[in-house]
């Protein structure tokens, strides 16, 4: 199943300066009762976004009409906890294409890459700079160039590189997923199975 290609994203940012954002916050378990992949964006950060009477909680970043964008910038250890891919689906469904953090939980990172959501690890001072600049002027533009593996703060020309597996990079650039690749390898897999018997 292919997904939307990702080559370059130029966008304003949504800052979320909180560490250890777990997947129960990204999408609470009670919203996992779907047999489809779509529609999770409505409940993205549900319990931070809405109170128990379903009223928007003012002060939460997604409820600020001035703030929007395709790039989420978060504190360290983003996506920890449950393996629910629904967390990555919810972020994608909301319209976000890139998440920046100093570190990601391993399962979340894999899930994101598998659906065409790009998790980018950058140094702490770069994240801090984004949060600081954002606090001063609300509109902050970032450019993410996957081909060159680089993130740029357009307002200040500051750039930083990032790491990604060459295979995964190719998948994202071309909008192809692992299964397209794996099913071509079944001969090799069968050979492997014979070997272990």
């Amino acid at each position: 199943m292919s997904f939307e290609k990702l080559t370059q994203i130029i966008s304003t940012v949504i800052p979320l300066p909180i560490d250890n954002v777990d997947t129960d916050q990204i999408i609470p378990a009670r919203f996992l009762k779907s047999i489809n992949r779509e529609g999770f964006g409505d409940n993205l950060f549900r319990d931070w976004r809405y109170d128990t009477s379903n009223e928007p909680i003012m002060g939460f970043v997604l409820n600020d009409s001035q703030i929007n964008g395709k790039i989420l910038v978060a504190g360290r250890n983003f996506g920890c906890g449950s393996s629910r891919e629904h967390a990555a689906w919810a972020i994608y469904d909301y319209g976000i294409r890139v998440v920046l953090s100093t570190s990601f939980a391993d399962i979340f990172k894999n899930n994101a890459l598998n659906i065409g959501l790009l998790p980018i690890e950058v140094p702490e001072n770069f994240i801090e700079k984004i949060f600081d600049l954002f606090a001063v002027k609300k509109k902050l533009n970032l450019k993410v160039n996957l081909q060159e593996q680089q993130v740029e703060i357009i307002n200040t020309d500051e750039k930083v590189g990032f790491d990604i597996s060459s295979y995964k990079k190719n998948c994202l650039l071309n909008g192809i997923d692992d299964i397209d690749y794996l099913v071509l390898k079944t001969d090799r897999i069968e050979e492997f199975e014979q070997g272990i018997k």
Partner: protein
Amino acid sequence: MMQTKTLFDKVWEKHIVDQIDDKLNMLYIDRHFIHEVTSPQAFSGIEKRGISVFRPKQTIATADHNVPTENQHLEIKEELSRIQVDKLKENCAKHSIDLYGLGNPYNGIVHVIGPELGITQPGMTIVCGDSHTSTHGAFGSIAFGIGTSEVEMVFASQCLMQAKPKRMLIQIDGEQKVGVTAKDIILYVLSRLTSAGAIGYFIEFAGSAIENLSMEGRMTLCNMSIELGARGGMIAPDQTTFDYIKNRQFAPNGDFEQKILEWKQLKTDEGAEFDSSHFFDSTDIEPMITYGTNPGMGIKLTGKIPNKNEKDKYFTKALNYMNLERNKSILGHPIDYIFIGSCTNGRIEDLRDAAKIIKGRKKNPNVKGYIVPGSKQVEEQAIKEGIDLIFKDAGFELRQSGCSACLAMNEDKIPSGAYCVSTSNRNFEGRQGPGARTLLASPLTAAASAINGYITDPREFLI
């Protein structure tokens, strides 16, 4: 000289089908567990592609996350849960996958039934669309949680694309103190290394304190290795492991002794190198409890909540959510609920621990409790041992098996603002229900706290 290898290296290397790029391996998966919540989109994915499940006999299914823990013989009331459970049944039938669904004597939480049926064995690669798959590492297997796209990959090819994690050793030596369980050991390690302390690593737990643990204890430990941020945790198999597996339903056929000889090779070679190592002394470990909103925020039961600066936004947010104060003791804090169960502490040994405290006592009238066995087999064993009656006499009820209030996907929820001493694995905001305040601890501590109605050191009842 022969190259020395860690246990992890040995099992990983044996499962590499291909090298994809400088980072990714194509890894063969021996066993794949599925459940109702993270599998439906993977089934529809392969159907859209027009492919079938490549090795259906290597996938095992159960219904656990959504299921009610009472009246399981009736139709599931909650519509969306019922649809997921029915969908699983339909998908398994269509794709020839063995399902231990509701009503089956082997039904239960996926990470409880795999080991108790003898499906989980040393040296295997095991995955499931659930982060606590790390539990199975207790048998010396590489076991880790995956997302739904990866579930689909395993359906399609019995393989996954994975970067090889770094290797971490956590060695714990020394005698375990009275009142200390495997849960306390892992909460202690978490409090020392934090919930992000092992990102990018696969852990091997070793040392005399680990060797002395039962399989149940080892499973509790490996279960929560994911809470350290690790991909998983594993323990070299030994006689305790072999004795546990022997004679179970799906234990290896044929020459079991021969199999044991093979399994005995699964250990880290003398002098093999880890990318990171941590050493702890078991005599430093006491009964633990968490006070915050991630499992790394734990203290000794007799300790005080840390006195961190107001500027620590994350810490302040956590304490506000929990409505707890800095620098205060946690012992004696009133509680509203206890939850004993989950893939962390829902095994027979955990129920025995709880019963040890509860026997002959009454629960505090202000405390409500969910005591939920991890599987039908655990439930039956508890009944056989009369543990259900001990609970009943104290004012509790032994429910039917499932994930229950660990993640509150079924009706078992902790109300907003209520404090729950829980034997589960996560104390995240809202994990046990919106606004619920979770304090993670051992079954001993949960049971003792239920008797008194406030957070209690279980040693009070053990000595």
